[in-house]
């Protein structure tokens, strides 16, 4: 049997042109600029940078424009671009205690050093459609300024609990371990340590992690979480160039950090105390940081001697399916021609049916 192995070039070219035209939309409507996307769709840009694993607002804005606002497609574009760049090295770990705070709330302590700082959040809005925004041109009223700025640094809530020994200590164990494993360079070999899992969560799909986090709240691996602290702000990226041997700051980047505080019954070795779940993401994305923190804590079940029978506690399940570029690729590859595979399936099904019919006729 002969099958067509070539063809469709003209159709593909024309489909690309049609896509470009659809992307542009009605030509009477002004074209959207990358600056407009970066400034006015900033949370889309944040999500694309976080899951695309590349902090670059201009590139993420371009990806969103090219993908017609399809964020998972935009994430794919950014991931593909980052594979073309060399790596100069790794930064010093961000010091989130020193970040310039833009928002900081705790659900565990009402009154805490530095205070509850609401910042730019949807949380306290009515969440009703605002038809004023449908009319272009109106500038928002300037946000009021207090006489004194927020404290330059604020202690983390988890560190306050730590002073009383009520929460597990979080100290580096990495002196001997060396560099953290990098999921973008090394194949994931399960079980992964917590630092490597955290990279997977940081670049994992927001929707997937949200659902998994939600599942732990609904009883699939319940872990009694409190939002100890959520903070948003700008942290300095420090890098030590090999040529210099001392640190320079190369950028201030916005990150969202969540510290979940979870009740822990205690075990043979550990007295009852609070344990932690942690989430850190590029940009302003509390939903993602909180989901990551819930899932991080769920994935620690085995380490803490808890039952591990829920999906969110299974690291191979979670981390093998959290990446939306991989997931989207494998689901959507089903669109590619499977003509020959399907032909063989047809033959098999026909043969089985014929066999069954023959058998029926014989009985």
């Amino acid at each position, binding site marked *: 049997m002969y099958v067509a192995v070539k063809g469709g070039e003209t159709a593909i070219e024309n489909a690309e042109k049609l896509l470009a035209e659809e992307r542009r939309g009605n030509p009477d409507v002004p074209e959207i600029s990358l600056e407009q996307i970066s400034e006015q769709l900033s949370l889309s840009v944040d999500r694309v940078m976080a899951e695309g694993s590349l902090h670059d607002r201009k590139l993420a804005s371009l990806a969103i424009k090219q993908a017609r606002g399809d964020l998972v497609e935009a994430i794919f574009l950014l991931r593909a671009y980052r594979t073309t760049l060399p*790596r100069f090295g790794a930064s010093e770990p961000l010091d*989130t205690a020193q970040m310039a705070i833009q928002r900081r709330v705790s659900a565990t302590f009402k009154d805490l050093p530095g205070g509850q700082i609401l910042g730019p959040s949807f949380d306290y809005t009515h969440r009703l459609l605002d038809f004023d925004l449908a009319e272009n041109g109106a500038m928002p009223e300037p946000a009021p300024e207090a006489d004194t700025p927020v404290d330059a640094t604020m202690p983390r809530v988890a560190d306050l609990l730590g002073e009383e020994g009520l929460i597990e200590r979080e100290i580096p164990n990495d002196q001997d371990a060396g560099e953290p494993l990098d999921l973008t360079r090394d194949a994931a070999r399960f079980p992964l340590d917590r630092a490597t899992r955290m990279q997977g969560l*940081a670049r994992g799909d927001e929707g997937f992690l949200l659902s998994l986090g939600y599942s732990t709240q609904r009883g699939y691996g319940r872990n009694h979480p409190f939002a100890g602290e959520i903070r948003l702000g700008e942290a300095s990226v420090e890098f030590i160039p090999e040529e210099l041997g001392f640190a320079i700051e190369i950028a201030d980047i916005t990150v969202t*950090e969540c510290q979940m505080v979870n009740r822990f019954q205690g075990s043979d070795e550990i007295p009852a105390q609070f344990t932690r779940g942690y989430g850190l993401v590029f940009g302003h994305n509390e939903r993602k940081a909180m989901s990551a923190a819930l899932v991080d804590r769920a994935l620690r079940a085995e380490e803490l001697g808890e039952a591990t029978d829920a999906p969110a506690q299974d690291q191979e399940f979670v981390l093998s399916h959290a990446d939306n570029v991989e997931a989207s690729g494998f689901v959507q590859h089903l669109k590619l021609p499977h003509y020959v595979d399907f032909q063989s399936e047809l033959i098999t099904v026909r043969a089985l049916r014929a066999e069954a019919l023959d058998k029926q006729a014989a009985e």
Partner: protein
Amino acid sequence: MPPPSFDATEHGPDTGQIGAKTEANQIRSRRMSVLAKAQPDRLEALWQKFDAHPKWQPLKATETGMVMVRGRLGGTGDAFNLGETTVTRAAVRLEDGRVGLSYVAGRDHQHAETAAVLDALLQGQDDECDLERAIIRPIETEAQDSKAKRARKTAATKVDFFTVVREREA
């Protein structure tokens, strides 16, 4: 790809031992940080106002790459890989042999090259030199002002509770 190995300080004035926390290194680090975080347009505008532009050559082709940004578990524990950021590196040699270097977030080659030229010019210069006064300090002050404004707007969203019970003192 490993970074090129060259000594950016070898032709500069004596900046002491590389990597050492010398005063010269601290001054250079501060200036390089200010230049890296500058708005490219603003830096260019201030630099263009400056008369004495030296001739320079790239010591190594200006290149855009990435730096892996790391965090720590719980903010204080083991380091982990958060995600990368684009970074552009420029290394330049001035006509008189002085060498400058820059690492600047983003993909703006001109920003990186201007920063590297300024790094070369500024080494060994004191706090009252022309470049410090005409370029570094204005950029630094503007950044601080803009940060302070943001911090005051943020402070206006701080919650004042009417009944204050201090849990930690109870």
